[in-house]
């Protein structure tokens, strides 16, 4: 566990930088995390991040790429274009959510 500063706020994150307190997340913070991992946020990125956060809020678990496609209407190919190399992990990090664990 570690503490990181985003937008002047102290935020608890795990060893890999994933948020332990999703409620402290904001759009500003998202931009900062994205910059850290080399992504410039666009409307398309924000659509993915909003879906992840809303779906997590209503279901209590992180969505899979299949769910993002079927329920969120975002093609997997687009996810890879927007968040290259590990789209779900990167998108969850920017969205201030936990690291996606693989289902069993």
């Amino acid at each position: 566990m570690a503490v990181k500063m985003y937008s002047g706020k102290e935020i608890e994150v795990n060893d890999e930088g994933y948020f332990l307190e999703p409620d402290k997340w904001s759009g500003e913070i998202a931009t900062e995390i994205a910059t850290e991992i080399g992504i410039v946020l666009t409307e398309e990125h924000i659509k993915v991040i909003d879906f992840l956060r809303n779906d997590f809020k209503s279901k209590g678990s992180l969505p899979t790429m299949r769910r993002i496609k079927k329920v969120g209407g975002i093609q997997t190919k687009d996810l890879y274009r927007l968040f290259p190399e590990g789209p779900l992990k990167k998108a969850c990090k920017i969205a201030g959510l936990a690291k996606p664990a693989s289902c069993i």
Partner: protein
Amino acid sequence: MKKIVILGAGTAGTMMANHLSRKINHKSWQIIIIDEHQTHYYQPGFLFIPFGTYSKKNVIKKKSKFIPKKVEYISEKIELIEPKKNSIKLQKGNSIEYNVLIVATGCKIVPDEIEGLADENIWHKDAFDFYTIEGALALQKKFENFKGGKLVVHIAEMPIKCPVAPLEFAFLADSFFTKKGIRNDIELTYVTPLSGAFTKQNCSTVLGYLLNEKGIKLVPDFNIEKVDSNAKRIISYDEKEIDFDCLVTIPTNMGDDLIENSDMGDELNFIPTEKHTLQSKNNENIFVIGDATDLPSSKAGSVAHFQAEVLTHNVMNFIRNKPLKPDFDGHANCFIESGFGKAFLIDFNYDVEPVEGKFPFPIIGPMSLLKESRLNHFGKLAFRHIYWNVLLRGLPMPGIPTQMKTWGKKL
């Protein structure tokens, strides 16, 4: 007469019929089980068919043999579940009303979900599954004449039924072709959408090491987009390509079409289920068991066995208007064949990862957890008899409790 209706006479449904038949008051309750298919497959046996260890006759029996006499067995296709009417519609048009419904319709592979995989020129010719009897038998034929080349073992997406099976398959293939004397002519690759060899970290380390030791190349984080059936190549969303001469794939696993048609499932047709009581999240008189649930537990027969004991208790409580018990802890117990007549045994639940130790009794075992041994392999082979004679009949397994125990384990 009140009715408990069970949908599906597979592993979980059959166990529930046996459990409930022994507990229920047959004067006021009728139990009905519905399944269109006649044959019960011993699915863990499919793994051994491609290598010629088992044949078809080792893994099939009649479903009706395992349904208790006091339970009515209807062999007909189910058209629709109508939760608002507490009713099941059958294909021939008649309906059955229920007081309590238990959904045990399982899951199945859906090769069509991946572009190109189900193409006629490769499916069951150069690309195989071993999760169906047809796939396992076709692969047995292929392996009889396989002279060498690129053998790719592949998982499309999680979750899958029996998450250890593809690893076991890779280990057994290594062993099989070594004994045949052509292992050096085969490039064996294990391709997974996960970041490592297995879902559970402890296991992933041990099993990843084993892959390496056996000369099986691991390709993690491979998210398949399509199969090029002419070039015989799998292609990922981020444009990685792997060529194959023989592809052994675990296609996308989904719940039954009935669940989708009845609008009761998630994006994979799995039913949202309360993870400790097995009550469905949307209807209080509907319970879900086995592979049909959306639970983060393994989709495996051992899990269905542990669930059946909890669910029997909860169905009895439900009909007596008593509170449900949150007793299912995600307990799973699996043998992992590692080739050359050895196997691993793992035991875990929602919260505790597989660890080393002895099972089922501390110190004396006799079986070792998370370690390769001959005895574990014999345990796996003996399990077929336990399955037919103990498990399906809903009888307790001596020494193996429903909730996972931590005794004898190195935590």
